[in-house]
């Protein structure tokens, strides 16, 4: 893993690496966590007569491959919204996912269903992805799609597609996709490339890590 480009933090007694590929790596369990892949979103748009160029799926899979190879992960948890819409279950998209799976047969894949998964349906069984409903307790973490709190567990979720606004000297401004760590849980960035974001207003004490091009940088705030 290109560790100088990733950010390391300890949360709930575990070490997490935040990678610029928009995924988190849980070191002790050798597990990648990612949310809101929205595979097939561009295809769903095309099927609806709205032209979106192809290539987003391929780019996403390359990014995922890189995260897997650099981290040495054995498992991947998808925290919801795996497929975007039923109309996005396009043959080309599913084929690309299938090819990717064939190149990574040893990976253990789990999907914790989100709101889009209900409408879009579970991934095809050939992908070998275990599909379960949220939430799932895993070590000290509570994995879910919608941000969920539980006594004694630290939540890891998606759904929000978090983005923060930064301000700098001489009236500089910047909006960036981020990882957000609050007192009871964290929100991961949307993994999909063709996804928007909602502005998040962190409270004092929250830790925020922005994806600044090829690196993850912590901004503002202090330790939790």
């Amino acid at each position, binding site marked *: 893993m290109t560790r100088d480009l990733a950010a390391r933090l300890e949360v709930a007694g575990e070490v997490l690496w935040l990678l610029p590929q928009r995924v988190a790596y849980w070191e002790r369990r050798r597990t990648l966590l990612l949310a809101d892949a929205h595979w097939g979103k561009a295809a769903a748009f095309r099927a609806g007569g709205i*032209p979106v160029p192809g290539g987003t799926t391929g780019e996403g899979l390359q990014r995922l491959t890189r995260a897997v190879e650099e981290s040495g992960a054995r498992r991947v948890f998808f925290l919801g919204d795996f497929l975007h819409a039923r109309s996005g279950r396009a043959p080309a998209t599913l084929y690309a996912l299938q090819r990717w799976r064939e190149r990574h047969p040893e990976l253990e894949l789990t999907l914790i269903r989100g709101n889009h998964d209900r409408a879009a349906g579970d991934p095809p069984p050939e992908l070998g992805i275990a599909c379960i409903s949220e939430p799932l307790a895993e070590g000290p973490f509570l994995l879910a799609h919608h941000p969920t709190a539980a006594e004694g567990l630290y939540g890891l979720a998606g759904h929000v597609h978090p983005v923060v606004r930064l301000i700098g000297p*001489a009236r500089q401004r910047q909006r960036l996709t981020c990882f957000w760590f609050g007192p009871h849980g964290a929100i991961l960035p949307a993994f999909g490339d063709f996804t928007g974001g909602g502005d998040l207003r962190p409270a004092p004490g929250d830790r925020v890590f922005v994806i600044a091009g090829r690196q993850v940088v912590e901004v503002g705030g202090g330790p939790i």
Partner: protein
Amino acid sequence: MTRVDPLVGADRWFASLGWRPFDYQREVWSAFRAGESGLVHAATGTGKTLAAWIGPLLEWMEETGGTTTPRRRGRAAAPPLRVLWITPLRALAADTAEALQRPLTDLEIPWTLETRTGDTPESVRARQRKRLPTALVTTPESLSLLLSREDSGLLFPELRLVVVDEWHELMGTKRGVLLELALARLRALQPELRTWGLSATIGNLDEAAETLLGAYTSRPWRIVRGVDPKEVVVDTLIPPTIDRFPWAGHLGTQMLPQVLEAIEEGQSAIVFTNTRSQTEIWYQAILAARPDWAGLIALHHGSLDRKTRDWVEEGLRRGTLRCVVATSSLDLGVDFSPVDRVIQVGSPKGIARLLQRAGRSGHRPGAVSRVTCVPTMALELIEVAAARDGIEAGAVESRLPVERPLDVLVQHLVTVALGGGFRPNEMLAEVRTTHAYADLRGDEWQWALDFITRGGAALQAYPEYSRVVERDGRFVVEDRQVARRHRMAIGTIVADAHITVQYLKGPRLGTVEESFIARLKPGDRFIFSGKPLEFVRVRDMKAWVRRAPSSKGAIPRWMGSRLPLSADLAALLRARLEEAARGVYRGAEMEAISPLLEIQARWSRIPRADQFLIERVRSREGHHLYFFPVEGRLVHEGMAALFAYRISRLRPITFTLAANDWGFELLSPEPAPLEEALEKGLLSPHDLLEDVPASLNATEMARRQFREIARVAGLVFAGYPGAPKSARQLQASSGLFFDVFQRYDPENLLLSQAHREVLERQLESSRLGRALERLSRAEVIVTEPRRTPPLAFPLLVDRTRERVSSESLGDRIRRMQLALEREAG
């Protein structure tokens, strides 16, 4: 019944009203009857409407032998569609129809006359689906909608005339291009069709006519000059004290007492402002100062509900209103004779605009048109003086036509594919008959076809895509969802998307830009339609509100129109500055502002026309560079990006940019290497072809311009009432589209259109080049004032900013912090 020569009949009708036709009106009638098309330009209120309208009536009377009593009454007996009357604002449709109805009634012509706009009730639409009236008053969007009907090929067999009212307002906009395409379609369906445009006087009338007529300029056509405008007087309410006057008081109502006095001098006044938010603010301020005027003053802007606007216009016509506060929504349209006072709050920003607004007053015989300007910041005094110079010199701005916007073409092609379909070769020929697409290249045409059928360029077809399909050589729409979505969107495509504002338990108030509502959080307060409101939520494509207890802490924050200064006015402004630099202060406005300009001279310098002033100021915020080309905001935005880019090539640095009509600011955390940059050709007019696009890429300008393109080309779809939930899965922001195109289909022509539009229309790159030619010959003067001098002050407080950086994102981020809750702004 005796046979009456139609012309004599028309004369008699005019005489019965105590009028006599103007010569120019008769000229238009006979030219029309001789088969000609053309353009009429005349001042507001001098009978342009009747000039265009009587011709087709005379023709009909002639053809039917002057029989003016129909054998059968009723809608079905009326002649089929003969005249289409296009109006730029749907708010004008009802008034226009009323004006057109009068001769029909008086001359007993059994035509049906109806309007069809976004406001038309469904029952009338249904009736019109069965049979169109003899004359239809409509907007460019509603005409497009008509062309998307599957039977559109059968609707126009008797169509003789299309009148385009206020053509100068449409020309130079994408709505104008949409209309050009619709006209080409109509001419293809009905080759004998004649087109007459009605226009205010503008600087390029020939071009205006050629744009309207397109290839039909090969047939007989003419420009008819109407009655000369009345004399225009421009005066100014001079603020009593200039030093306490806000330098950047966009909202300042400090001049309220003088404005009230001016309103009280007359019977009925229109107070024009430049933005909707200013309208709301002035309305509130006047009402607070004169509570007894409740019911006698009103508010008018394009976002208000139709009923409210109708009520206001009716009040103006009857003279029952003391005062109406309005935006450009009252610039156009029928006359309000009782209005005897026009007040312009803020800079008019253009000579033609000031003339047009002045013309709303003084319709009584012998009256002059008078407009009284109210500066909202000190520098506007000079802008008024310069605008008056322009009026006196008879200089009126030109409107430049739009060339080859592919987004509009794409939209029109889908419309025609819906309206019965098209064959590519015939369609290309038809499209090229318009002025906008006369030079459409073969590859652009092919790209547009590919875009609607395959989604992208031929070699990079988008899989699973379907919008328009080819069936036996015809391009048609088969998917009903695509059809429905396109029709729903046509009306809102070109204008910014609007959303209805409605009380939770009560009536609709009007519509507001979706982009404004998108920024509101539940509980936020804003003033709309003169009422303080609290935003509750958005549901079913409506913004639901409740009455707020007070207007405290709330103003509409939407931009409205940030009108740029016209090039002609900018030149006159520089001439006025040159005089001031020589110590000459001519006229009341210049005398009033002389103390401020003297401070400018003491702290820094007043630039002469052959000088280029640059001010370097240090503040807590950082290092400011102020440049004063005085070329208008559009040129300044481009020049700011260009200069920031050129300086940032010398060393890693990050600039934030602000621009207004007078100059622009580059702000950086560290001092910028200005002298080095000047030596290395900062002002050079060379290499613009490389440097300007590069500097553009460094800013977000193209990304923002893409908002409009994405909407017009049908990428972004806001949904519609009753849209199925699945429609929501097809919503994405234009910014997202821009990024995804940029990354995965960088050759996409919509992207290059965004760049071209920024270069040509926003930045007016040809003007930018000419301005640099001038500045590179000018004497550069760099001053280092300790405090921000008057010319620069409005830039200091401007909040709209662009950024240009040559530092890496990571380096920049390290100096930044989170925008935490409660951030000002």
